[in-house]
């Protein structure tokens, strides 16, 4: 039995009157690859944003590595218009900004690549190591932390070698071809030294061959960096190939969970993706 690295309990996200995510309860086992799939607009990226601290959940709790990193319950205005299935866990609030959560060991990539466009490939990765810096501003400015600085540079270089992007080291990030930009974004997330890596549609815009390479890539980095992976994806081949566990979302609700085979044969899933046959 694997240790559960990330757990969400009754996570509900409501914007105004619309419930984007309703009563999400997932468990992400350590060292495995878990996937979140569902039709467009099902609430997958919203769930990611809640887990990483970008949004504060309307209701529910997120626990990472044994610590509660986010918790909320419907208050003031939301109390009256709350439409979620599950009512209030308990009346407690825990708020963490995304940077804090990243420093705790969770990193992510974005659906629409968000690289630091005008900076070099190397700088993109190097900046991701800044969150672990020990020196303060003055020490860093006066170069009194030379050893630490050297180490950061070496780690960034090593990472670029590992993901095979080192030949583009000093090029501008925006000048890379699309597939390599996606890889760079993953490398950048890796540079923060995470235990859990969240990938938001890493195969978007890729052809089947590239998708296959990506699948191998994900498995390689999972092993070399001892990661747990949580991914959102539309490419069914990628998901079914590498995932150990799959959750299916539709209109914000979890309609199925299980292994690839179990999910593929679930009638609710088939209905959500293919629609109901006319009688």
């Amino acid at each position: 039995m694997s240790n559960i690295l990330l757990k969400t309990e009754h996570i509900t996200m409501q914007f105004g009157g619309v419930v984007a995510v309703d009563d999400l309860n997932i468990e992400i086992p350590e060292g495995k690859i878990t996937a979140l799939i569902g039709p467009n607009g099902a609430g997958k990226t919203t769930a990611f944003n809640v887990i990483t601290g970008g949004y504060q959940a309307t209701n529910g709790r997120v626990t990472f590595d044994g610590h509660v990193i986010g918790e909320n319950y419907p208050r003031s205005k939301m109390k009256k218009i709350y439409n979620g299935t599950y009512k209030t866990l308990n009346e407690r609030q825990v708020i963490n900004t995304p940077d804090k959560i990243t420093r705790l060991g969770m990193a992510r990539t974005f659906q629409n690549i968000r690289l630091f466009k005008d900076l070099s490939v190397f700088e993109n990765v190097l900046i991701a190591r800044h969150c672990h810096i020990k020196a303060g501003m003055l020490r860093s400015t006066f170069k009194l932390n030379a050893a630490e600085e050297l180490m950061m540079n070496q780690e960034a270089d090593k990472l670029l070698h590992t993901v095979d992007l080192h030949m583009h080291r000093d090029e501008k990030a925006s000048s890379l071809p699309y597939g390599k930009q996606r890889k760079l974004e993953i490398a950048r997330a890796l540079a923060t030294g995470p235990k859990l890596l969240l990938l938001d549609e890493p195969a978007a815009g890729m052809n089947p061959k590239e998708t296959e390479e990506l699948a191998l890539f994900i498995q390689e980095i999972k092993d070399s960096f001892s990661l747990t992976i949580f991914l959102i994806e539309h490419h069914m081949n990628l998901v079914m190939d590498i995932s150990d566990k799959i959750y299916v979302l539709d209109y914000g609700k979890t309609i199925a969970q299980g292994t690839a085979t179990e999910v593929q044969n679930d009638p609710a899933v088939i209905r959500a993706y293919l629609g109901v046959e006319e009688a």
Partner: protein
Amino acid sequence: MTTILQHCLTGISLGGAYALIAIGYTLVYGILRLINFAHGDIFMMAGYFMIFALASFPWPVAIIITLVVTTVMGIGIEKFAYKPLRNAPRMSIMISAIGVSYLLQNLSTYVFTAIPRGYPELPYLKRIFRIGELSASFVTLLTPILTIVLVVILMILVNKTKTGMAMRAVSKDFETAKLMGINIDRIVSVTFAIGSLLAGIGSILYFTDRMSVTPFSGTLPGLKCFVAAVFGGIGNIPGAVVGGFFIGIVETLLIALGYSTFSDAFTFLLLIIMLLVKPTGLFGEKNVEKV
């Protein structure tokens, strides 16, 4: 008591002028997400236009000329300084607006010199009326009424006409409006035209009470009117009007109480408090950014 009411009256008159100018800011921001730093200076130029128009033409003609020239100038500024930067990062277009403001101020200093020029008296406007114990000039009474009338007309335009609907569409979603076939350039020009026209009217009402124009007469009122627009909810027309009146009245009362140096600072303090407490303003709507 009467003094307070008297000051309130003056405040309402000032507020009306502010309201008209604030509408210009709120309209442009709603459509282009741009703080038109030059708007206050368009208002100032309108003041100068009137001075010269009245020197050569009878007053009805002069008013029309001033308003037309101001409107054309507003449209021209947009085409020349903002349109080329529509796809540039936000900072660039704001710097351009600041640049236009800078240019207008320096141009005015060069052409008209920095010495205050007397604003001519329009007949009837300065005639004093008495209501009970209060006395006010005609322009003081006219301003709020005219403002309300103009705002009502504008709201009808925005809510009931096709152009108005297009304006609302563009302010909600620029890209999609373009895809739906709306002629963005035309809508933007119309927006600037309306804003400049109202600023022109506002300038007539404002300067009639003020007596003189300098090249820097537009800076502070401009900023204050932007605050008024934020206060009422940026992008919201009735909100801008409420904001304009609010700031006009408070400012007048502060000066009457002897805190004139702080009357300007008060407006900015209000801005900062608004931005902290309720950035969407009194009547504004929240915008959630999707990751």
